């Protein structure tokens, strides 16, 4: 099976991301990479929990002073929805519907940018209203490192998906680029799962004490 061969809806395989050896290798390798990323974020979560509310003096803001549910709830909804839209994109990828896939990816990326915008607003808010900065306390360092690492992952994912969409805009799907789209969507889901944990461990647990 040639990787750049043209397909009709009838000849397009059911799992185009795994139809070539190259695709299979990318698919498995990326799952393994996400295993390593899981340990990376687990270490950051452990560091955050150890340093939560650890501040140099009584004036410094603590988790319960900082976090507000409405803002983080909206951010969570944006990112969860973007995960759903990337599922729709992959559904159309598997059915060889390139245009619909691109459309859903555009929505995914837009939601990702909205999330990132909220995060920037949120960090700005903490810095100016509460003087809660990266260098103000161990709590601040741990908070911005954990949430910032996630934000950097989101930004990387946005650049990645956009470059895939632009690169393949005129040639459509084949067995060479299908695994690339699939792996990028796996990454996007992973970012979403990490955010669910951040929402729970950092924000919800931060607000209740």
């Amino acid at each position, binding site marked *: 099976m040639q990787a750049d061969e043209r397909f009709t809806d009838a000849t397009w395989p059911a799992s185009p991301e795994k139809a070539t050896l190259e695709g299979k290798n990318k698919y498995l390798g990326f799952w393994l990479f996400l295993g390593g990323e899981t340990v990376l974020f687990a270490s950051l979560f452990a560091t955050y929990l150890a340093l939560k509310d650890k501040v140099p003096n009584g004036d410094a803001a603590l988790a319960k002073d900082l976090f507000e549910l409405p803002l983080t709830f909206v951010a969570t909804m944006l990112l969860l929805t973007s995960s759903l839209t990337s599922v729709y994109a992959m559904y159309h990828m598997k059915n060889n519907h390139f245009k619909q896939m691109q459309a859903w990816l555009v929505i995914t990326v837009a939601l990702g940018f909205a999330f990132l915008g909220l995060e920037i607003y949120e960090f700005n808010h903490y810095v100016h209203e509460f003087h809660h900065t990266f260098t103000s306390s161990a709590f601040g360092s741990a908070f911005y*490192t954990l949430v910032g690492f996630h934000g950097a992952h989101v930004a990387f994912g946005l650049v990645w998906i956009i470059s895939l969409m632009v*690169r393949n805009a005129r040639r459509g799907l084949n067995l060479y680029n299908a695994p690339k789209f699939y792996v990028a969507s796996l990454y996007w889901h992973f970012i979403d799962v990490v955010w669910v944990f951040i929402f729970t461990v950092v924000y919800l647990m931060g607000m209740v004490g």
Partner: protein
Amino acid sequence: MDIICITFLHSEGHGIDFYVLGLQISGLGTLIAGINFLVTIINMRTPGMTYMRMPLFTWSTFVVSALILFAFPPLTVGLVLMMFDRMFGSNFFDVAAGGNTIIWEHLFWIFGHPEVYILILPAFGIFSEIFATFSRKRLFGYSSMVFATVLIGFLGFMVWAHHMFTTGLGPIANAIFAVATMAIAVPTGIKIFNWIFTMWGGSVKFTVPMLYAVAFIPSFTMGGVTGIMNASAPADYQFHDSYFVVAHFHYVIVGGVVLGLLAGITFYWPKMFGTMLSEKLGKVTFWTFLIGFHLTFFIQHFLGLMGMPRRVFTFLDNQGLNTGNMISTVGAFLMAFAVIVMVINIIMTSAKNEKVGNDPWGDGRTLEWAIPSPPPFYNFKQLPLVRGLDPYWVEKMEGKKEMTPAEPLGDIHMPNSSILPLTISFGLFVAAFGALYNMDDKTWTLPIIIVGLLITFVSMLIRSVKDDHGFHIHKEDLMDDKDKGGKA
């Protein structure tokens, strides 16, 4: 007093930053290589090569790659925290701002203990191949060997706090980690006995690799025994940070890993370069290295018990430590002599350049000995059919000279060469160079960091958007160089 404490809180200069950045970049390379090995082993085995027919060297590489995948990220995070503290003023380890230095100890050792298995398991794999080859007998207890390797890999993640017994985690944590550590002696013991039983009743040939393998068993076991001593938390309060610990880990690392490397280099030299190292010089290297090794490190057990501390490169006169250290020094020179003889051996062998055939040891059991030395860049013209453990030996026992092909002769798909991995790492080098000097308000460092990262990310982008379908070696070309071997 206060002022002294503050000035000595962190290491001055760029030394630590150099290590942090260097480890970070090489750790990234290790992680990606680990994923590559895992995917290759899972997806690309030849027909008939089931998991339980894989050579032990492949099995240990497989387990080690999994260890790399899960052990390196905690190190990455630990290094990031330190980097942020030193370069960007964060407070992870600054107690006055709420920081906690124990986090570093945990993150480092969650990596650090699996790392010692990342070192030793490949050596175990090499020795397993050597024992079977030169006992001319199938490895004893193959499946228990696989099981023990996997179990060691698993338990390796459960024991990191045995490096922190004196940190003050409390008696319950210390007891749990002590028991878990001692449990690792069980799978390791299984391996030791399997190697001994492989030799039992075999027709043993004492080539240089086999000499290393035989010497490895008592040397490594001595390190294992002191490991159990260190694992006893109450006793460890005595051994901690003394030369006893230095003696222990050199017995397992030099007596295990370095002997494994020397054995592996000698064993696979003909396969890698097509020439055979001199056995005579090899034996000189072996004996001087082995004697030098024990001379250097055995005495250090006693130096440690006499109170000599670790991590100090000088000691006071008239403390009763002079003789022991002199013996150590003599041993170190013997080891250096051994390695110099090995280098001379390599130069002489390369100068003579007497080419050898597929199976220069005459007793090769695994697939690599069925193809020319050094192998052609596509390895096998036709994928070989594996019909049992030690497939080449299986064919030999049936009177065949080569492997049975599993496929008709056809085009071979190969990946293209690419400059991009080099530019990706060059960008990281540039960025790290800038970060190294990113202190004391220098203005030129930030642009250097940005340029370096740009080189890396743009290279990654090109790698992603540029199609690379590889190329095919055509069937006709493969048939032309029949004289070059290519027994499939």
